[in-house]
């Protein structure tokens, strides 16, 4: 009887330890996580693990909750200008680089959100990465900015996923944003999924976009 109790205690402890030590990843390979850990450290790894968890928990949610979860998750990451963070004028980080370094600018938010939502099954034609002009509150100055937009129907007003105004809003409710130009990444995404390593000139010709796609 006593032995049985010991055995149960031992098995319980073993299970607990294995549960703690197991990485329990769903959407990211452990190899990738190891690479991130090695390159960016433990904190970065925990961010990646949290990201994975967000993806997993959002999978069964409706579209608005998916949008919100993704938007909220990435908006928690610190904003930093490219020239300070990357030492380059206009650097588009891949989601792993963005999470790994734990900071980025507006493009990095938009891109990371785009890929996460694509991972959650949101159709490509509903997502667009949009260049906008942002009027800063309380000033006359405007600055170039980038947001991710979600079109529920082709004719509907898009929902804006922004890192400045961190709440989800219809574009019509964002008078501070003026749309300039938008694009999708369908062709490049497919090319990437075919396993091509080099950047092929595709439907979208933005240099930074291609360079970023090659790093994902």
């Amino acid at each position, binding site marked *: 009887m006593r032995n049985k109790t010991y055995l149960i205690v031992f098995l319980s402890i073993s299970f607990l330890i294995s549960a703690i030590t197991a990485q329990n990843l769903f959407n990211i390979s452990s190899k990738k996580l190891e690479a991130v850990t090695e390159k960016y450290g433990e904190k970065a790894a925990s961010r990646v693990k949290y990201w994975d968890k967000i993806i997993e928990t959002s999978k069964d949610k409706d579209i608005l909750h998916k949008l919100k979860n993704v938007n909220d998750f990435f908006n928690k990451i610190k904003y930093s200008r490219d020239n300070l963070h990357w030492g380059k004028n206009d650097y588009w980080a891949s989601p792993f680089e963005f999470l790994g370094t734990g900071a980025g600018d507006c493009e990095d938010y938009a891109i990371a959100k785009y890929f996460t939502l694509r991972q959650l099954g949101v159709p490509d034609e509903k997502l667009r990465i949009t260049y906008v002009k942002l009027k800063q509150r309380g000033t006359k100055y405007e600055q170039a900015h980038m947001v991710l*937009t979600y079109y529920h129907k082709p*004719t*509907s*007003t898009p929902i804006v996923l922004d890192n400045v105004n961190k*709440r989800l809003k*219809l574009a019509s*409710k*964002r008078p501070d944003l003026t749309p*300039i130009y938008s694009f999708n990444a369908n062709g490049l995404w497919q090319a990437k999924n075919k396993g091509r390593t080099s950047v092929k000139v595709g439907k979208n010709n933005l240099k930074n976009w291609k360079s970023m796609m090659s790093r994902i």
Partner: protein
Amino acid sequence: MSLSKQLYLIITFIFFIIFTGNFIISVKNTKEYLEVESQTKAQDTATSLGMSLRLLISDKKDPEIESIIKAISNRGFYKEVRLEDSDFIITTEELIGAIKNSNLHNWKIHDVNVNPKFGFLEKIQSDSDMSEQLLKLEDETLDLGFENETSDEKYRFVPTQTYKNGGKVNFEISLKNANEIVSSKVILDIKKVLVQEKREVKFDYVPTWFVNFISFDLEEKYSEISDGWKKSAVIYVSPNPGEAYAKLYEQAKNSIIYSIMAFLVSMLILFVFVQYILKPLKTIEKLAKSIAQGKFETIDNLPWTTEIKHVSIAMNDMSRKIESIINRLNKNLEVLSKKLSEDELTGMPLKPTFETDMKEMFIQKSDGYILKIKINSLASFAKTHSNNEINKLIKEFSQILKSVESVNNSHIKATSYRFFGSEFMVIIKNCNEKCANEICKIFKVNFEVLRQKHGLEEFSHIGGTPFNKYGTTPEMLEAATEAYEKAKLIGPNEFFLRDSNDLTRDMEEWRSLVFDIIDNKNFNVDYINPTYKLDDEKVLLMQESFTSAKDNEGKNIPIGTFVSIAEKYERIVDFDKAVIQKVIEHILINSLKNKVMINLSLQSICDMNFVSWLKNIIQKNKVISSQLVFSVTAYAVAKDVEVFKNFSFKVHETGAKVIVKRFESKFIPLESLKDFNLDYIRLAREYSLNISHDKSKQSFVESIKELATLLNIDVYCENVQNDDDYNCIKKLKLNGASR
């Protein structure tokens, strides 16, 4: 195929592969580059056009839109620039405006339907629902409503495949005014394409086959244009392949021109290089050929290419070694030849030498005397004396004979021969009866001294006969013997000389006989001396044509004499021609497979007209040319070596063969054998007679065979009657023999 041709072929093939591969890769890369460039350009144009049109797209009928598109299209880089509506959006205003009854224009739309064959209608919902949901989601309650929403209702027409580009579409509208509802039908002309500019694709510069052969995969590029936040239109830009074709054609043309030029220059360089490389090979070939002909040259300027240099050195080495082997063989043969032709005791030539010397005299038509001298008392002397004493006597006797070799009269040339034990012969050239008489007297005096010295009763007799140019050796030997017998009758140590009046036949008689035989071809050709292969005795190699003629009394004429007379009266060429014709006829009629030897006189082979006649007749009978073997005796060859060399060369040009018969090293020095380019030699009978018992002869014949093998000459023997001799020459691996 020559080495140079093989080199040209293989290198041409390699060049072809390289240039073709290079050409294909270069054209393919250029094509891909041009495709990418064209499409990138089209995409950039679509993007920048989209950005330019963004500000104007709120009014899709704004003429500025068309102007901008035309301005871009007119630059000619694009096949088509097209602006399409992104969606068919129909407003209530448009629908009401299309109603013909103007009384209804103030009514409101209650419902709109469209026939399913055109497509279906989707009412564009206001965003308020979505806005509320978002407020709830973000825990916000206050909608500040920054943007005024229009009150106009809009419909999105989703067409069927047939109407995807628009067209005239029927709509059924129900209109409401207060409580009254009426229905109306309206037709709207819906256009998908707002502006379209096309430019003809021209390939003036590029040939049609090139356009048909290479297809450019140029995708249409597009850019979406948003009116505010919503997609409003799409601008499409199609690249014009004309320019890409022109550039690609130019590239392909230049590439081919360069390839051809490079190929030609490479072949020229290769030609020079191959000539340079192969030159030493030609020198080696020349050397090999001259070695085969027995000329042992060497290559002095060694080639630069290592492998060929090594071959040249090896060839030089081989040439020197063969030369030294042949020289060694020649030396051996000389020694053996001397041993065979000299009497060991007296150092005098033997009977075979006497016979050949006689033959030489016949050819040279010499004058002279032949003396037969015999030591009569040698047999009785031998009984009472030792061998040494006998040898001493013979030596002293031979000294007396030899002493005549040098008398004061410089015209005399005497040679003494030892036939058997006590029998000697002396040939005195350029000597008349008076001279012979004097010599005999000298001999007689000296013999007398010797007789007294050794205390003998009777010592020696001399019988002499003049040399008869038209006679034969046996005849003269017989005449000398007769004279000798007469001398014996005269008395001890006496001599008897026959005079020239003894000649057996009158010259006039001879002349008419020979002319008659030649003019009327009154002679027979027999095929004698069948020579069989020694290692396969069933194979008949060669027969000898032998002419025989009869005199008026029906007696056989000695052929040697006949030939001598014919030569004297310069009819021998006609005779030889007649014989050749008869032999050719014989070979053709009897379809002979073996070779036939035809004897030619020296006079004939010296005659240029005869040689060209011979070449001509052989050319006419080319089929049997290799069966004709022209034979010249070794002593005839020796008489005029240059003439024979020339004859041999000319005969070989026709494919016929040459044999030297009665071959003796005395007439043809072995080291000069290589110069004659012979096919066969037939050894003098003397060499094969009793060869089985004579080691010296065996060594001699073996050496000749070795030398002949090196020079590609077949060696035959003649009239080998003794079986032991036959087996012996068989062992020595001679090529053939007659028995």
